[in-house]
């Protein structure tokens, strides 16, 4: 690649160092693009609420469309290479927070182990959005309609949150506390998403209902993941996770109780669909009414169970 013209990227002082050392003629403030997590955490601890973290920007720049001037300081994570990696470590998949939807969609490992997550990433926005938008941004934005959130919950994801004081790992379920609200503190950075590698006989189904195929904010989302026992008939465990039907992405735990230990052939799909319909609390909004979402939730649960049933029958063990 050609040598870059002089810019911020080449300026060490711009990557979060002491601003007094700055040799540049323009003020070294307002925009930081550090290369290491530690530097980012240091900047965060210094600025706290006075700085905005930017990943892909595909939600943030929409949110601040006509008031970008309100943000005085930016912390851009684009140069932190270790946040862009997808790797397997023992029995876990570690996904960096800056991994884009395009990366998720095209990763063979994600496709193999977490097909529901892979499909969810492929269904997001448009090529332009998938190329920039990140998994970490999708999580931190915490939209009840966030496409990746239900699949992540369905695969028992955990999130690594770091500050320059300490780091913690929290289950996805505990991270979301309301529409666009999470437990993330101003001095914390979501750095990694940790997923246990699924057992061999794990099946998944992803259903997103929206107004159109591209660039649709979901009217309703279902991520269903079923773990089968050795015999490929007995249900070992299940996660039924939905989006756009409650203030946060949710799991319908009653389905676990109803399905665990049962022979898949003897399940009453309609009854399970009804449980989903009864346990969600959707609202009326521009994308659909409460009543519509309730009806559709039941139907897509039945469809998902049918799809998993046929995938299960196709596999010969």
């Amino acid at each position: 690649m050609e040598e870059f013209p002089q810019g911020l990227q080449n300026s060490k002082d711009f990557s979060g160092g002491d601003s007094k050392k700055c040799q540049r003629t323009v003020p070294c403030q307002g925009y930081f693009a550090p290369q290491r997590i530690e530097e980012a955490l240091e900047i965060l601890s210094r600025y706290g609420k006075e700085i905005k973290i930017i990943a892909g920007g595909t939600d943030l720049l929409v949110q601040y469309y006509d008031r970008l001037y309100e943000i005085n300081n930016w912390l851009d994570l684009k140069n932190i290479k270790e946040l862009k990696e997808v790797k397997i470590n023992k029995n876990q998949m570690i996904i960096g927070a800056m991994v884009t939807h395009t990366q998720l969609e095209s990763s063979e490992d994600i496709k193999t182990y977490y097909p529901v997550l892979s499909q969810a990433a492929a269904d997001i926005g448009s090529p332009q959005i998938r190329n920039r938008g990140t998994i970490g941004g999708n999580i931190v934005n915490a939209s009840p309609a966030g496409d990746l959130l239900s699949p992540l919950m369905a695969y028992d994801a955990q999130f690594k949150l770091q500050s320059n004081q300490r780091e913690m790992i929290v289950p996805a379920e505990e991270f979301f506390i309301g529409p666009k609200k999470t437990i993330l503190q101003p001095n914390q950075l979501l750095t990694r998403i940790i997923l246990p590698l699924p057992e061999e006989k794990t099946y998944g189904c992803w259903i997103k209902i929206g107004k159109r195929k591209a660039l649709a904010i979901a009217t309703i989302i279902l991520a269903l993941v079923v773990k089968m026992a050795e015999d490929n008939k007995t249900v070992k465990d299940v996660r039924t996770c939905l989006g756009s039907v409650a203030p946060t992405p949710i799991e319908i735990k009653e389905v676990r109780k109803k399905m665990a230990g049962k022979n898949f052939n003897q399940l009453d799909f309609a009854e399970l669909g009804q449980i989903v319909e009864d346990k969600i609390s959707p609202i009326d909004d521009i994308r659909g009414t409460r009543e519509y979402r309730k009806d559709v939730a039941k139907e897509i649960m039945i469809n998902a169970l049918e799809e998993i049933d046929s995938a299960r029958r196709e596999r010969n063990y």
Partner: protein
Amino acid sequence: MSKLTIGFIINGQKKTIETTTSTRLLDLIRDDLHLTGTKEGCGKGECGACTVIMNGELVASCLILATQSDGAVITTIEGIGDNECLDPVQEAFIETGAVQCGFCTPGMILAAKKMLEENPHPDEEEIKRGISGNLCRCTGYQKIIDAIKLAANRLSSKNGGRSEKDD
């Protein structure tokens, strides 16, 4: 809002330019560099009129801060052909009548060009997916899809097609 200087390569030319922390890449391209082929439609990443290619990826320049493009290599519609020598995708758009008002065309052509680079023989569904981030309110898309098919055929029969202008 702070002022600062950034540098990048746009359409093959190195540029160093002063900008602010609340400027979008789209504004920098249009207002500061006067490359007005890149359009603003919705400003929210839904219409694709502001599409450019940055570091080899199709992106919406309305959703990128100017500062984020520091050190990047950017191609806008002005960078893929000139009056003497159009890009094969541009030629195909003209020949099939895929242009009406023209507002979506720059973004549409860049999306088509990027898709054909990655997938030289797309089927119709793949073409639709490739331009799914670009809205056109005139043509009904059929002629745009025809144009991309024509460009794909020509590029593959020319064994890679006409050499591109350096960018």
